[in-house]
């Protein structure tokens, strides 16, 4: 058992030192009725590294790998190239195998990195401050709604129909238990977003208006009028960004008046990983700092006056405030935050803008090409690297048919909104810098064939 350093000699010496005859003496407090005398049945015994690697390798092979086929999926998780140095940095043992920085004198690496991460997120989102990360975008979205409730003391939120349906589902689930009132609806397959309807729906009870930017169909809407309408009624605007690379090209929600901006940081540095772990981003204006959930790294000085960093404002948090905490969250997603910040540092402003432009240019090219297929209609008038097509047939079976041809050709709205006839023909296509000309040709051909 390669992970256990004690030898049998050590064990017997140590048992003797603690005054126990056998190991079972140390488990005397366990009620007899619940003690297992032998091994749990039905489970295999220990295995060598080689054997485990083989088993897991076989399971790994039984998947269609995004990087090995023409791949066009998005809708909340995006495939970007992650530089090799990013993965190297997150495998440094000093980052990988350290804990939450409770002892700041020996955790300055993590703390300074988080301070830099917070600064990058705040600037990217156009906000004053950001926290040290949340579980993922969907849980950050719900935490932002709660936070807005604490600020406004109102329990009603209006969710845009362009918000990712899984995010809506998370919020609805939680609101069922907290008693918050959520107004939601289904998106329409049209170029117009629901900005007008949202603005009309804001009333004096509304605490938060939640808008995804770009939205689930890829549409980009100006948040300024929504922010103004929300503020005029005393509500906060929460913007949700599931593809932060977009903000290298289009205005930040904070610049347009969003009070809280949350996001999914997966697309920078983290990778697809079948849905997790990802990294939730949460930024806001200075004045809301004490209502923020999650960890915060802050600057201070040490006993010699040297600059250093600590976790701060922990009087908001569960380990101090217990049932009065702003959230029950106890961890963040620090290693993913490290991947995010390291990748963004490598990109820099210049690289981020190039990457964003490249994504958009590529997406425009693919949109025009696919819209030329007879019967296929481009829904969006605006988009970043993701757009929605209206097919002449239901998109869900079409996606499966494309798999048969070795193409992962987007996310059908039938998958996201089952049993919704009005959306069944919608197909969301994401195009990143990883897509090659051959991939585009394969998608074009596959789609033409399945529509034939």
């Amino acid at each position, binding site marked *: *058992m390669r992970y*256990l*350093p*004690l030898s049998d000699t050590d*064990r017997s010496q*140590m048992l003797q030192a*603690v005054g126990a005859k056998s190991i079972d003496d*140390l*488990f005397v*407090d*366990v009620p007899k009725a*619940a003690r*297992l005398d032998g091994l*749990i049945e039905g489970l295999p015994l220990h295995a060598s590294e080689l054997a485990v690697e083989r088993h897991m390798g*076989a399971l*790994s092979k039984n998947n269609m790998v995004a*990087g090995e086929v023409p791949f066009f999926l998005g809708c*909340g998780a995006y495939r970007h190239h992650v530089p090799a140095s990013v993965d190297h940095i997150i495998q440094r*043992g*000093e980052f990988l*195998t350290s804990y939450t*920085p409770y002892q700041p004198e*020996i*955790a*300055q690496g993590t703390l300074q*990195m988080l*301070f*830099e991460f*917070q600064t990058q997120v705040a600037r990217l989102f156009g906000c004053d401050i950001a926290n040290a990360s949340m*579980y993922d975008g969907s849980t950050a979205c719900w935490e932002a709604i709660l936070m807005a409730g604490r600020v406004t003391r109102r329990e009603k939120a209006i969710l845009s129909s362009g918000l990712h349906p*899984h995010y809506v589902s*998370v919020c609805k*689930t939680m609101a069922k238990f907290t008693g918050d009132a959520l107004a939601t609806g289904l998106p329409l397959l049209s170029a117009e977003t629901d900005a007008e309807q949202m603005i009309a729906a804001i009333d004096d009870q509304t605490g938060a208006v939640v808008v995804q930017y770009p939205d689930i169909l890829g549409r980009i809407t100006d948040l300024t009028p929504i922010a103004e309408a929300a503020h005029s009624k005393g509500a906060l605007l929460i913007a949700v960004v599931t593809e932060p690379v977009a903000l290298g*090209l*289009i205005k*930040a929600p904070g610049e347009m008046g969003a009070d809280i901006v949350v996001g999914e940081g997966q697309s920078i540095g983290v990778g*697809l*990983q079948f849905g*997790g772990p990802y990294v939730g981003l949460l930024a806001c204006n200075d004045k809301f700092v004490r209502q923020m959930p999650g960890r915060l790294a802050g600057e201070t000085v*040490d006993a010699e*006056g040297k600059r250093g960093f600590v976790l*701060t404002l922990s009087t908001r*948090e*569960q*380990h*101090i405030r217990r*049932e009065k905490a702003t959230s*029950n969250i*106890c961890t963040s997603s620090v*290693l993913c935050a*490290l991947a995010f910040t390291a990748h963004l540092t490598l990109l*820099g*402003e*210049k690289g981020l803008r*190039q990457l964003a432009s*490249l994504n*958009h240019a590529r997406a425009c090219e693919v949109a025009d090409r696919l819209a030329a297929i007879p019967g296929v209609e481009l829904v969006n008038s*605006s988009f970043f690297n993701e757009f929605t097509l209206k097919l002449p047939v239901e998109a869900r079976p079409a996606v*499966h048919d494309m798999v048969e041809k070795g193409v992962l050709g987007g996310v059908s709205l039938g*998958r996201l909104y089952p049993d919704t006839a009005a959306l069944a023909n919608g197909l969301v296509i994401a195009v990143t810098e990883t897509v090659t000309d051959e991939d585009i040709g394969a998608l074009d051909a596959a789609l033409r064939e399945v529509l034939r």
Partner: protein
Amino acid sequence: MTVNPSGWRPTTPANEEGGAQTVTGNRALQLEEPLLFERGRLDQTGVDLPDAKVSGQRLSGLQRNRDIGLPGLSEPEMVRHYTRLSRQNYAIDLGLFPLGSCTMKHNPRLNEKVARMPGFADVHPLQPQETVQGALQVINELAFWLLDLTGMHGVAMSPKAGAHGELCGLLCIRSALEARGDPREVVLVPESAHGTNPATAAFAGYRVESIPANKAGRVDLEALKARLGPDVAAVMITNPNTCGLFEPDMIAISQAVHAAGAFVYCDGANFNAIVGKVRPGDLGIDAMHINLHKTFSTPHGGGGPGSGPVVLSEALAPFGPLPFVARMPDGTYKLVEEETAGEEHPDAFGRMTAFHGQMGMFTRALAYILSHGADGLRQVAEDAVLNANYVLRSLQDVLDAPFAKSGPCMHEAIFSDKGFAEGLSTIDLAKALIDEGFHPMTMYFPLVVHGAMLVEPTETESKAALDQFIAAMHSIAERAKAGDQSLKAAPLYAPRRRLDETLAARKPVLVYREPEQAKAAE
């Protein structure tokens, strides 16, 4: 806006004893590192990307024209920046990390390799299910192990961390109570519980009441029984508890709670002490989260990501969240989502996160479980408990050990600063441990022990490592008892001396501002 490479360097105190000043502020391998914002430039990048032409016609007129303020670094500079930062961190890879309740055990590197296999790392959560059968099988295999090891009925895999798992368990309980038309308002939590327990109960809409511990560091069964009633929804117990002790009355507690119509939630943070030795299902537990980053060795990563699957009893399993993986009769795997939940899982309370949970942690945990097997996992618990008892008995002569007389501990040993000389307390011992090359233990938790020091060595420490730790603890404890005030200055040799946390909270500086901006803000 300019992002200024300001040439920042730390100030080395002029009057430092025995230490010559250096021009750079560095001390040999102790290398200082400026902030990214003091180092990088907006026009610097570490990637080679082509310039693409963008017309802007499809951006709703929302092009971002102003500077964002994100400096970049070339690859060599970036690697050096983070490598230098990394060296200011303590880590399990460097030495013993006896942070009680946190289970800082070795993180096997096979797990890292496995998690990076393309079939796991490079698949999208919304790929058609026929293209991710291997990934779904991983989730299903891990679920099978977790059920077998705990003797429970169902498992929710999607919670993202321990506290998220607690929330999942309590929402199952609330759903089950509401389904039987018996909503209740109160959750009982022992005083010794992790802060997440009361915070989660409040998050789930419950009023929290605490139940006292008895003198032996256990839940006071009689006090608990006296409080149970028709308003109590659940009792949240940590077992082994946060004093490192097994609750010997656990079965009686469960029976009393069930007799009162309530549910038993177990905080599974300490499952590593009993894995393979005791099955929580045999203790009458209804729901328990399992921190894969504790018991099953997935890396803590400086504070997440964690992963907190929740095992559920027969009574609660129907209410578990979506999505989950089901094995079909033909041997294929299926993701049960909202679409088909109506027929297959009609009582599900809903969805907790966008996708299916922490896949990258599932692959690591499964690799760990398969490596250890049924026999190895049992040995893990035994060695963890043996190591903790060895520390307890080796230090009880010099440190107050409040529960040493009540019998053996489980995976962690608790001490206090009782007996330290005037002016010295737990934090001083902890900071002196840093100078000795160890990470301190958990300090001032659990709250039921004044000046608590909770030491969890874990099973991946050798006897030699423990002996060295014990020797250091012995020496520091003697100094603290003798009133050696120099302990207040510790740590002396860490990258930083004690940091001013009060200042950080009073005038929060949470982001970098360029000097001219910072000045303007004042």
